[in-house]
Structure formats: structure tokens, C-alpha cells
């Protein structure tokens, strides 16, 4: 048994007693491997007695699950209405430049910091009231 098979079997076992366990399982797999790839889909499908199509359908539906791991650090920038009203669009060019190939800039719709935007998230850390300088700083610090 490979490490991955072993780890996914453990994740499946940990959620055995839950009702409707697929989403919590996918979150754990995504967290562990940085993606839910074909192999993981197959193993999860077998473990839950679902068809692979069922699992793939769910994986591809949600923005949080990705088919390929991205080794770059991710900076999520909110570009929903409230952050737009506070000028996030003017920061995007500079942010993209600062990110270059090293950092992945992702768009997120709302971090719930709508009164203190523009806002960004790196891992579980949130940043608000960002101006150009602060956002570039967040991106350069992202690991």
C-alpha cells in the first residue's frame, strides 16, 4: 500500500460515522495533498461505495477542490461588490505584478470584511483595509 492509499484510508475511516461524509472527506484530502486528483477520487469512490462519476461531479462542482496541486503560496483577494466599492480593482495590476510567478493570486467573493475592505486572505490569516503598499507587502510575505 502506498503512503497516499494509506492516508486516504485513514481519512475515510475517521469519517465513517458521519452522515453524508463526502465533503468533510474531500476537505481533508485537499488539505493533506493540496488537491483531489484522479487517484484520490478513485479511492474515495471505492471507500464510500459511490461511482467515480459521483465523486468527480462533486469535486468539480466546488471551487475549494482542485484537480492539481499548486506548490505556490496562494493569496486570495476579495473582488465582490463591497470591496469593489472600496477600490480593490485599482490594486489588481500592482498585485499581479508583485505576485509574478511565485505567488498565485486567486479571486474570492467575500471574506465578510465588507466594512473594512479591500481584504485578502493567506491561509487562515486575514488582512483588511489594504492599500497598494499593504497588499504588495502581504503578497511578498506569502509563504
Amino acid at each position, binding site marked *: 500500500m502506498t503512503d497516499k492509499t494509506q492516508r486516504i484510508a485513514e481519512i475515510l475511516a475517521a469519517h465513517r460515522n458521519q452522515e453524508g461524509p463526502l465533503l468533510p472527506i474531500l476537505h481533508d484530502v485537499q488539505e493533506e495533498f493540496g488537491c483531489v486528483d484522479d487517484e484520490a477520487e478513485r479511492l474515495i469512490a471505492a471507500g464510500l461505495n459511490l461511482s467515480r462519476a459521483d465523486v468527480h461531479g462533486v469535486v468539480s*462542482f466546488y471551487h475549494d477542490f482542485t484537480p492539481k496541486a499548486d506548490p505556490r503560496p496562494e493569496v486570495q483577494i476579495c473582488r465582490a*461588490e463591497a470591496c469593489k*466599492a*472600496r477600490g480593490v480593482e485599482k490594486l489588481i495590476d500592482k498585485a499581479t505584478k508583485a505576485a509574478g510567478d511565485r505567488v498565485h493570486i486567486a479571486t474570492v467573493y467575500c471574506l*465578510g470584511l*465588507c*466594512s*473594512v475592505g479591500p481584504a485578502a486572505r493567506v491561509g*487562515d490569516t486575514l*488582512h483588511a483595509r489594504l492599500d497598494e503598499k499593504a497588499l504588495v507587502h502581504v503578497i511578498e510575505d506569502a509563504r
Partner: protein
Amino acid sequence: MIIRISDDAAARALGADKLAEAFAKQGHEVQRTSSWGMHWLEPLVEIDGRGFGPATVDDVAAILDGSSDKAIGLIEEHPFIARQQRLTFARAGKTRPLSLEDYAATGGWTGLRRAREIGSEQIIEEVLRSGLRGRGGAGFPAGIKWRTVAAAAGPKKYIVCNADEGDSGTFADRMLMEGDPYALIEGMAIAGEAVGADRGYIYLRSEYPDAIRKMEAALRLCAHIIAPFQCEVRVGAGAYVCGEETSLLNSLEGKRGEVRAKPPLPAIQGLFGRPTVVNNVLTLAAVPHILGEGGANDYEGLGMGRSKGTMPIQLAGNIKHGGLFETAFGITLRELIEDIGGGTQSGRPVKAVQVGGPLGAYIHPDQFDIKFDYEEYTAADALIGHGGITVFDDETDMSSMARFAMEFCAAESCGKCTPCRIGAVRGVEVIDRIRAARGSADSIARKRDVVELQPVMHNAPKDNGRLPEQEIALLTDLCETMKFGSLCALGGFTPYPVMSALRNWPEDFVRGDGRVVDLVLDKANA
């Protein structure tokens, strides 16, 4: 000295943790409380009821020796707080979120205790009497939903809390879960008592890491109090549409978050086909107060018309004094934005206000006398939704906001129904063409392409192309189709921001004064 600093996500995103550390280093006791909701002052430091904000690490010394210029005086007497009627957010700023001691000392668990004494029928009676309506957006009377579930037959029933607060401009659910998690849990336990359910799920969006952590910790700490009721947090996966109750249920079951056709209502066949109460965070959190002694009558005594009680309104976007403002229904937009919000953050004139999140209408300053009430908003072709108010200044291009509404719908559509899945994509294209025609020299919005001009394309018109007014008529027609043909509010309400932007700011869509748009809209209405 006891220093109180919020550990709400907004305060932490603005450096509250570092600030707390700096005070602790000076040898002071730092208590992390919930947020008062005055976000423009975050991080707000509280010493003996007096506030200092927005504070940075550099202000620590001055705050301690009393010379800081960031003093705002007694927090409770600050006009922003003094003008509110806080019921759901009664504890905001005052208690430590995870302290069971603080919760019990401020009246916590009395609603649940009383609910257990009076029993199912009486609980539902009191919730009905309070006039509490669903705070998620639809405004459906909570008591009627509960009565339906209570009456439904079945050995297993569920309480599901919709904490998938995806609307931009809203953060009340997040603040409540981070600031007063036990209130939500108590509300769910009371709902369980009312309908005969012993299992609850909180469907919480993955974009709220702090709220997830707090709710999970709170559930562990109070499990013995709410037992035999059991509750669990389930984390969403970045799909906006899962805030719609039937797609939320599918997601909880581990399926694609596709909308279900109604009927059957979730109250009859909900989670795993069982009778299920699906209520928003604010609805459930309002319940403990209502179930307190005389709470239902108090609640019913507030508000206007059929909108009873209080609404936690969220002031967001380009506003000077942004934050949480809970007040009885009936307040006007003008009061909220000008008196309480202090106008725009940028200091420029207000151009538009979007109420109710990405699916809410853009309201023109001419309509600011509209009162906060479900029925008044419906009559004005707008919606209250989750109570979020996003302010835009005069630099905003409303046609780009209309385009974004369609773009957002296309990105977040679950794909089940055609008007939403395809309509939103076509909507972006039409608005793009209208915008392009505004900026180009010739006034044709859409030229016929080569294929259309082929002789075999019998039905395609062979003229020069569509004029902007024809494109606007097309957009209007598309919005009608989406509004009446979509399965849920995502496709059904996206026309609100689009059409309100078009109607109120036609000059942002076409060249000149926009009279063309009026003509098209009049014709469509005739």
C-alpha cells in the same frame, strides 16, 4: 489594568492580535471580547468602558498614560451604539465569546430552560406571536416553518443552520458566530425542542476560518448543556449557491450543490429526505431572546407592518462609519447612510446603494426615503435580503456593476436550470456589447458576423447589425426570462441589480443623456 480588545475576524485582520500582545507585554491583563461592531474604529481598545481606536501598536504608550488622541469616550454612549436597539447582538462587545460564565451571566440558556418547561406547542406559539421572520432573505415566518416540521411525521428530523453568508456587504452571521456562538447554539437547541429534532448541522462557509474555529470550540464546550441535542459544524466549499436552502441540503448530503425543485418543501422532505428546519444564523440567534420571559411580546412590539422586531443591518462598502447597526424595522436609508454611516469613506457624493447583497437592487439617492421593511422593498422592486447595505460613490460605473452581477451569476450558477446557467453568460455578452458601443465611434452595438450573412441563414436578419437600443431591449427581455424562469433566487434575482442600474443610471450604459433607455423600458412595460 484590564484591557479589552475584540478577537473578531475584522479586528484581527486589522492587527488586533499584535496590539493585544503589546499590552500584555506591558504587564496588563488583556481580555479578548466580541466586537462592538464599530468597524471603522477597529482595532478598538477598551479600558473601563472607554474606547480608543483605531489603535496601532504605536498608540499603546499614549493609551496607557491617557494622552492618546484616539480616545472616543465611553463606548456605550457613542452615538453609533446609543442609537441602536440590540437584541440579537445584545452581547456584542461585552462578553468573551467562548466564556460559558459570561454567557450565563448575561441571561444565557434561560430561553432553552424555559423552552424545555413549556414544551413544543407553546414554543411555536411564542415564536409565531413574536412575528419573527427568516433573516436569510426570504422573510418567511419562522413559526410557520417550525409548525410544519413539528407536524410532519417521521422518526428523525433535523435542524439546519444556514451560515453560508456569501452575500457581499453582509457580515452579521460571521460577527454573531465569532462573538456570541452560544446564542446560535441555544437557538438551534430550542428549535430542536420545538419540532422534535435531536440533531443539528451548521453549514458554515469555508471563507470564514475564524467562525469555524469558534463554533467548533463552542460546540465542544457546551455539549453537556444542550444534550441530548447534538450539533455539528459542516464546512462549505466555496460555492455561493449553497446559501440557497435546497442546494445547501444537497451539499450537506455530500452531493453537488444543485438546487432542488420545490415542492417538496424542506420542512416536509429536507436533509436525507427527513423533515428539516432550515433557518439563517440571525433567525436562530433571535430565538433565545424571544423565548425569554415576555420576549415574544417585546419583539412583536418593535418594527412596522408585518416586519416585526429588529434587524441587524450591515453598513459596508464605501461608507465612513461602517459596521453593524441593529435597529427596529422602519428606519430609512437616508438615516442609515447619512446620519449613522456619515456618508462615503472617500468623501465623494453617494451615487448608489445596493441593499441585500449581489442579488439586491441598486437604489438611487432619490429613493433614500424608503423604509426598512420587507413589503416596502418588494413594492419598490428591491429586496432587504440579509440586511447588507453597500455604498458606492460617484466614481462608480454602474454598467460595470451590472456586468459584474451577470458575471457573478455565471460563475456561481449551479447549472441546473437554463435561464440562470446560459442567461447569465449571454447577459455578460450583451452588456459588453452595450458598453463597447458607448465607447466606439459608430453606434452599432453588434455587427452581423460572416455566418449570419450567408445566404443559407434564411432567418438571420441581413441588416447592418443591432443598435444599442435593440441590445437594451434584448437585455430587458433576457432579465424577464431569468426572473420568471429560474429555479432559485440566484438566477431569479440577478435581474434586480442589472435592471435597477439600467433604469436609474441609463447614462452609464449609452451615450448622451440615456433617454433611449427610458424609451425602451417604457415600451417593454407597455
